């Protein structure tokens, strides 16, 4: 990858879409990339739709606007499909990945005629089975790594185990579950 | 050490001669009395709000302050001195200042800079507990700008923005009780005082305030011959009557415990104090007796309340 990749995240306040975008930036940074991670700023309120952005590149990034024509879109909560035009500006040769129990074909109907690749992942199921609770961030992070191909999957997993060791230094018992969630998510993206 | 006037007067005047306060002004008398509370060997950083005191004691290139002095603006003496105190703590901690040297921090403000425009800055500095003393020299109006009413101005007083007119007879509101406001900050030491008698009350309280760790507050009556309208030589008489009428009680609040330092055996009627001042002249016109009665009532009620507070806060546990 040499060109600039732009990613837009849609979530709801409190679900961690912003955190997920920062985690992706971290992972890409740790594999040597230039990165940007920033939310669409405003008073963040629980439940309100929020947007976050990533730019990832092998070259220094100078552009500082929001992202209007993303290469990829991540939707952390499929109830947003009703409320938000999630594919606005999304490049046709890009892809959208939605956290949903539905199939990509079922989702495509809600996407206002988007013709590019549609992927889904059941982040709830993976999260609950591996972490015992619903944390959509971890599966969605792996899903966008898979869908976008922005970094080598093994390098991503190697980096994440290090960052989980750091993040969960006081409760190492959750590291395995998180790593399992990542591995399963890399394999359970539908519509590739 | 017990207060001794002549011993106290041997200390250097830390507000030096050559300042340009009015002849007979109460403020420099109060300031020097406060500063005699400092141990001679201690250095002080003194701040002042913009006001008579500041513009008359540091007119470039002359300073009347024997200690370090800082003035920034009208409403920020509290925060400015708090900043200097914070710096002292940091520099001490970093070993940038000699260990055996002690610096004390004192802010002065008139009632304008303290009761009104500077109240927020004062409240913040006190609440944060900087090791400093804030001294309000209260002359009951904005004297520096030409005697405009302040929230410290007594009810009915004639000022240039509360003139005694044909319809409205002077200031209509009671004065704010700032000493009580400061008591609500739960400070280790709060005192109300005035230059009085042999100055034991004011200087002893200053010493307590300066050497009590934490944020302390003093409210000092400082008569103004121009603003109050009296011949300059009457300064001490006006202080004495303010105390003897219980208009300006001498008291202190030590860790929440009230101590009334002086209880006159015979409270002098407040009219005796009022009649010496031109700002109250209209109260003595026929038909205006009610105003004097109202002021007397206000003074009496506040005095009784103060005595009650003393009783309540000194109850045996």
């Amino acid at each position, binding site marked *: 990858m040499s060109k600039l990749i732009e990613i837009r995240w849609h979530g709801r306040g409190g679900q961690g879409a912003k955190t997920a975008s920062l985690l992706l930036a971290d992972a890409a940074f740790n594999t040597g990339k230039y990165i940007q991670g920033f939310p669409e700023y405003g008073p963040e309120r629980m439940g309100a739709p929020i947007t976050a952005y990533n730019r990832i590149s092998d070259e220094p990034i100078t552009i500082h606007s929001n992202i209007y024509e993303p290469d990829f879109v991540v939707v952390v909560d499929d109830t947003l499909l009703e409320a938000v035009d999630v594919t606005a500006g999304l490049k046709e040769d890009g892809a959208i990945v939605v956290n949903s129990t539905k199939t990509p074909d079922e989702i495509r109907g809600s996407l206002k005629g988007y013709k590019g690749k549609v992927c889904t992942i059941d982040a709830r199921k993976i999260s609950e089975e591996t972490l015992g609770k619903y944390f959509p961030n971890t599966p969605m992070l792996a899903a966008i790594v898979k869908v976008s191909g922005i970094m080598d999957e093994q390098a991503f997993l190697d980096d994440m185990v290090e960052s989980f060791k750091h993040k969960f230094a006081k409760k190492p018992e959750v590291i395995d579950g998180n790593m399992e969630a990542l591995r399963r998510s890399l394999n359970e993206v539908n519509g590739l | 050490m017990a207060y001794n*006037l*002549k*011993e*106290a*007067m*041997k200390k250097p*005047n830390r*507000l*030096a*001669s*050559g*300042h*340009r*306060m*009015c*002849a*007979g*002004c*109460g*403020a*420099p*008398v109060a300031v*020097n*009395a406060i500063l*005699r509370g400092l141990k001679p060997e201690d250095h002080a950083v003194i701040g002042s709000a913009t006001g008579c005191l500041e513009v008359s*004691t*540091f007119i*470039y*290139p*002359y*300073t*009347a*302050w*024997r*200690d*370090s*002095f800082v003035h920034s603006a009208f409403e920020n003496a509290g925060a400015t001195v708090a900043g200097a105190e914070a710096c002292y703590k940091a520099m001490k901690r970093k070993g940038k200042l000699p260990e055996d040297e002690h610096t004390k921090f004192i802010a002065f403000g008139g009632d304008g800079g303290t009761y009104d425009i500077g109240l927020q800055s004062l409240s913040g500095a006190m609440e944060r507990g900087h090791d400093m003393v804030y001294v309000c020299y209260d002359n009951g109006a904005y004297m520096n700008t030409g005697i405009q009413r302040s929230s410290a101005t007594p009810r009915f007083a004639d000022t240039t923005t509360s003139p005694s007119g044909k319809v409205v007879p002077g200031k209509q509101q009671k004065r704010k009780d700032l000493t009580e406001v400061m008591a609500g900050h739960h400070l280790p030491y709060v005192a109300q005082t005035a*230059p009085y008698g*042999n*100055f034991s009350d004011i200087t002893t309280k200053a010493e307590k305030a300066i050497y009590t760790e934490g944020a302390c507050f003093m409210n000092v009556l400082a008569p103004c*011959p121009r603003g109050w309208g009296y*011949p*300059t*030589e*009457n*300064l*001490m*008489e006006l202080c004495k009557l303010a105390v003897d009428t219980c208009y300006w009680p001498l008291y202190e609040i030590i860790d929440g415990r009230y101590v009334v330092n002086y209880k006159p055996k015979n409270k002098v009627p407040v009219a005796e104090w009022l009649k010496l001042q031109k700002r109250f002249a209209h109260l003595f016109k026929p038909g205006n007796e009610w105003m004097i009665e109202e002021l007397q009532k206000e003074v009496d009620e506040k005095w009784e309340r103060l005595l009650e507070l003393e009783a309540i806060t000194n109850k045996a546990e």
Partner: protein
Amino acid sequence: MSENKCNINAKSTWKELTPGGTIYDAANSEGFHTGDWRSKKPVFHADKCKQCGLCLPVCPDSAILMDESGNRGDFNFDFCKGCGVCAKVCPFGAISME
């Protein structure tokens, strides 16, 4: 009495003024005499003075001279503005305003 050591006066050029107007010479106001503000002059009658000291703290201008043992002497007319507060507080009539 300290002099105005930095020698700054109304004719000083910008190069001669201290930056920011900071003065490094504490209490140099003692070089600025306010005695000419006086319209009435206090007169000290040493014979009537009992050395009670009550006049000392009431002087707004610290213009009453004092010896090492704390006894008052005459006025410092370099600074006395003639307010008369001292005369009024003296219990013994040892100060008169003339």
